[in-house]
């Protein structure tokens, strides 16, 4: 789960990281009031779960409260990568001497939290990792010991030669790790970490992703979820415990298992179609879940056909077939449905489906070819 910059900054502040003052505005008036309260120049920043805010015009430097108001009016309601901006962060503008990068994420290969720091801030760290790896210092945190003081200091020394700045940065690295762990994060980033002309080190941007699996024990973090910033279909899928990702094609996919679901999408493409979504309904034959899945898929007006691809393993195919038949009775569906069902009790299942008027297949390739054909019709 991604959280907004202003939310990540709250977590950072709680961990002691120096973050300039800033608050959220939902209207131009609020933005102006905040700019007046802070005094001096401010920055108005779109709060949206997307990269490239700056390029899209979602970040503006305001000289006066009136400017802040005007920029907020521009930014609120703006669409950035398909997401509507509903909130802006109004924060004081800082004098910037240098910009650096400090980030921590879970490294799959090292199987542990890993820091990356670079004195080149405000950049795409992955790009720097490729183009100029010497500009990055990496450190994997041994989960048995946590981040040790000398490790934080070692990272900080890569950023600043000045002892005073290095000392501040060392503290911030430790605090960032604290915020990362205490938030159950999978990624936390300060980009840029700035120095000011008067020798202070501060975080002026903040990014954090939370491990969804940590949310059950961190209700205060779970509350940070902003459903307004994701497609309604994805919200509904999450609430129904379905894995769903919206795409652009016409073939609505409903599959059991994530790997098979991806392979199904790929096969749609292979046969010349475009998948409308990724959707894993899991191992359940529960009609409720199938109903939710169908509602989500059909809420996408681009969908021209619905494709079920079910591999019955422990779950018996006839149970799943009954679930599908039951579910389709409960909701009106105007697009054709094709179904592939194989595995345990497959013959029984195919009969049930045919009796209910569905096209039933046992071969994955056959059903996908059919679905693509129907989508083009």
């Amino acid at each position: 789960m991604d959280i907004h910059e202003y939310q990540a900054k709250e977590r950072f502040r709680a961990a002691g990281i120096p973050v300039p003052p800033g608050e959220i505005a939902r209207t131009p008036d609020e933005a102006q009031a905040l700019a007046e309260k802070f005094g001096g120049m401010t920055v108005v920043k779109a709060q949206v779960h997307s990269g490239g805010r700056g390029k899209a015009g979602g970040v503006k430097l305001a000289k006066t409260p009136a400017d802040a108001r005007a920029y907020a009016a521009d930014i609120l309601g703006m669409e950035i990568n398909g997401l509507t901006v509903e909130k802006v962060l109004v924060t004081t503008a800082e004098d910037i001497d240098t910009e650096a990068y400090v980030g921590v994420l879970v490294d799959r290969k090292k199987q542990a939290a890993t820091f990356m720091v670079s004195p080149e801030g405000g950049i795409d760290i992955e790009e720097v990792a490729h183009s100029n790896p010497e500009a990055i210092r990496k450190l994997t945190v041994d989960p048995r010991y946590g981040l040790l003081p000398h490790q934080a200091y070692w990272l900080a020394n890569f950023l600043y030669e000045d002892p005073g700045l290095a000392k501040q940065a060392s503290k911030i690295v430790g605090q960032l790790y604290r915020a990362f762990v205490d938030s159950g994060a999978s990624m936390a980033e300060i980009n840029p970490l700035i120095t000011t002309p008067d020798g202070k080190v501060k975080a002026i941007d903040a990014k954090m992703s939370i491990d969804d699996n940590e949310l059950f024990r961190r209700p205060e973090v779970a509350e940070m979820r902003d459903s307004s910033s994701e497609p309604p279909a994805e919200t509904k899928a999450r609430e129904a415990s379905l894995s769903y990702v919206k795409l652009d094609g016409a073939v609505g996919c409903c599959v059991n298992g994530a790997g098979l679901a991806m392979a199904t999408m790929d096969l749609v493409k292979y046969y010349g179609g475009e998948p409308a979504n990724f959707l894993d309904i899991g191992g359940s034959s529960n009609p409720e879940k199938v109903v939710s899945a169908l509602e989500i898929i059909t809420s996408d007006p681009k969908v021209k056909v619905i494709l079920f691809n079910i591999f019955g393993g422990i779950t018996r195919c006839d149970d799943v077939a009954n679930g599908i038949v039951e579910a389709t009775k409960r909701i009106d569906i105007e697009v054709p449905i094709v179904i592939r069902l194989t595995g345990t009790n497959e013959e029984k299942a195919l009969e049930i489906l045919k009796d209910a008027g569905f096209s039933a297949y046992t071969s994955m390739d056959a059903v996908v070819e059919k679905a693509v054909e129907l989508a083009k019709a």
Partner: protein
Amino acid sequence: MAIFIDRDTKLVVQGITGRDGSFHTRQMMEYGTQVVAGVTPGKGGQTFDGPDGTTAPIFNTMDQAVAETGANTSVIYVPPPFAAGAIMEAVDSGVDLVVCITEGVPVLDMARAHAFARDHGVRVLGPNCPGLISPGKSKVGILPAQIVKEGPIGVVSRSGTLTYEAVFQLSNVGLGQTTCVGIGGDPLIGTNFIDCLEAFENDPDTTAVVMIGEIGGTDEQEAAAWVKANMSKPVVGFIAGQTAPPGRRMGHAGAIISGSAGTAEEKMKSFEDNGISVAERPADIVGLIQDALG
């Protein structure tokens, strides 16, 4: 022969009294797996009733279960908040292999649990994996027994149902399996492709290997390099997720393309560059294996 589990596998089921645990324990017992014990804290002294009048004693702790039954393997069906703890308990108890089925375990919990397992030299499979099956010998986890068949092919996969798809097709043309291993869809897993490939390479009964990967991470690329350097047996590979968008999690916590790393394209290229035959569709796997075996 087979890898990781065979007829000598003596299994403890952690979370045996739960809904999933009890269901799959019966399935494993039916298949012939030696389920020697179950563990549910607070239910020690009770007995688990398996199929056809078989039973397994239930203990409060792994320590007791192993001491009393000589178990050498454990499988975990406990809920996510307790799964990492259950892994560490199993590691501490002296078993050789711990298979964690549970999905949704916090990743930082797993960083600690994997470190603990490494410190103790114990193999963990998973978490968030379907387990493994050595046809005709033993089944640990949730893989459907009816689709497998004894034979010479090793199968290793990050996915569940996609594995069934591949195994089903292999079995249908008479190509049975030594062992089918689901290594799991999480970002931090205890046993990776290379571990399995190495075991298959060393298993005299395995003649060829099917390796099913997906987007996210670079495990497949490292495995491909390992295959080229170390593997004498033919390997056929498939990657799911060619149409997955970057930055979105595709069901599995580990199936996400971050930046330029972990795309299906990159993985398939790496397979090709390292002498692994790449199946474009799941349906192509069987043909490629048949070609490889001549």
